[in-house]
């Protein structure tokens, strides 16, 4: 009886070891794609890489950073690249993010498909300017009860070349809420002229991996890895009136744009509408009032949707859309720059279009 049991255990164990060995061999041979070539933008850059990883990660290892807000899980749809040759068929996990036109142009989600053969791809040239930076937290400041301003001093490389309004990706290391590194995108709030540091305004999202890390774990002196800059939300060159609208941490890119205007001596008429619920949700008011003195034709218009009695508020009231509707007349020739939640952006775009600003002159950074 004992002998039979021992023989059975030995057979099962041997079988398990054999299968495990088979899997290791299979992984090393079948799943070994060897070295493959990636040609970017008609051969302007060429890399020989080891196959087998998602394109997003493979490019990242070559220090080519494709924007991604979900850390490569296929849930943000940002990391699109055009695949000219190779790459196989579009995967079911990519389809929800791709329009019919994009599918015809073989646009792919670079986080979803693995590099198994040589590829020819096209990416925007400006992504070659994106770099990874080691930074040190120089200052953390409370702006409101749930928004912090984080100033990062660049260490290596020591300078960044960004346009006002662009964003970076902030790397969250492993900590209590995550057992792997994750990236989240945040707009720069600092002036591009100070290229040795970046400022971010980060609002606490309940259970948010990055925002919880920043609000509850990050300390001055900590090292933070970022990469960037990304994005096409920036002030266009023109003499048109600029109408800026933001709420909450949407303040960040607008502040960066205003500081840039000051540095460059841009004197075009600018009105900035900022929506908050009550006085406790307003921030950087002094800085905005100071800009009213230094920019030649700038007006800051904060508005409270539900001012509290203790606020003693005599400024504009109502939802920011109501304020826009009341205050804006004859703005058909203006440009608009918006940053905030999708609901806010959609509602504001509707008001601005009703007032005569065409789609092509409404620029926005939507948190969606």
């Amino acid at each position, binding site marked *: 009886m004992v002998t039979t049991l021992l023989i059975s255990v030995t057979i099962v164990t041997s079988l398990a070891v054999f299968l495990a060995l088979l899997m290791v061999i299979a992984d090393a041979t079948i799943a070994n794609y060897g070295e493959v070539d990636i040609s970017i933008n008609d051969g302007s850059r060429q890399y020989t890489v080891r196959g087998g990883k998602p394109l997003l990660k493979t490019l990242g290892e070559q220090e080519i950073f494709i924007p991604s807000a979900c850390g490569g*899980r296929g849930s943000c749809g940002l990391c699109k690249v055009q695949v000219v040759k190779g790459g196989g068929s579009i995967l079911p996990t990519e389809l929800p993010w791709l329009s019919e036109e994009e599918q015809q142009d073989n646009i792919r989600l670079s986080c979803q498909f693995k590099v198994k053969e040589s590829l020819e791809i096209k990416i925007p040239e400006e992504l070659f300017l994106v770099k990874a930076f080691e930074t040190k937290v120089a200052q953390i400041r409370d702006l409101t009860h749930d928004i912090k301003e984080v100033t990062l001093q660049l260490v290596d490389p020591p300078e960044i070349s960004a346009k006002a309004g662009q964003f970076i990706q902030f790397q969250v290391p492993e900590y209590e809420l995550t057992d792997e590194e*994750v990236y989240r995108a945040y707009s720069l709030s600092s002036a591009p002229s100070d290229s040795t540091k970046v400022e971010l305004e980060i609002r606490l999202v309940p*259970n948010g991996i990055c925002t919880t890390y920043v609000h509850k774990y990050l300390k001055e002196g900590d090292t933070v890895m970022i990469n960037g800059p990304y994005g096409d939300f920036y002030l266009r060159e023109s003499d048109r009136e600029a109408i800026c609208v933001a709420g909450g941490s949407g303040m960040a890119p607008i502040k960066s744009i205003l500081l840039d205007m000051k540095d460059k001596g841009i004197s075009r008429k600018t009105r900035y509408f900022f929506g908050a*619920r009550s006085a406790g949700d307003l921030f950087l008011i002094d800085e905005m009032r100071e800009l009213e003195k230094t920019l030649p034709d700038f007006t800051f218009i904060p508005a409270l949707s539900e001012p509290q009695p203790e606020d003693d508020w005599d400024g504009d009231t109502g939802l920011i859309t109501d304020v826009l509707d009341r205050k804006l007349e004859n703005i058909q020739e203006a440009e608009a720059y918006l940053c905030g939640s999708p609901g806010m952006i959609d509602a504001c775009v509707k008001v601005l279009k009703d007032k005569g600003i065409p789609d092509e002159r409404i620029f926005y950074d939507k948190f*969606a």
Partner: protein
Amino acid sequence: MKQSPLLQQIQEQMKPGIITLDGFLGKDTRNLIDILIEDDGTVRRLGRTHRAIAQRMQYFRDAGYAGLGEFITVDGHFEVRVDSVRGKLPSPFGGPQLYWKVNTVVRNLELDREVFYTDLHIHFVRDHGFYEGKGSPYRLDPVELIDVLEIPATNV
């Protein structure tokens, strides 16, 4: 309880790193069927339905959307904020729909308590009676939802 292969497949989709970093089950080592049965029992015992709870969640989500990303007062003693982070998520239960990462915070000022949920949660509760596993960072306690959102008892 033994569960069907389909539920087993769904449970696999709920593990960390498949759809979301944390997954949907937390430290709950029970089968999905057991998680569903326990929460279903709680909701029934309290005289509510998953559909009624989901409807109330949706009500605050829609009312809060009018606040354009800031808190807004709803029905006198609730404060609601609806905002978003970038991206959409599929449901581990399957189906073609993707759910925007829309977050709703509802504060009940009379109770001085708040709940937080996403659009995906509304789908979970409405269509599957699923509130996530115990220890999941996004777990919704049905009792807490019923209390804070003031969901009246219905004829089950």
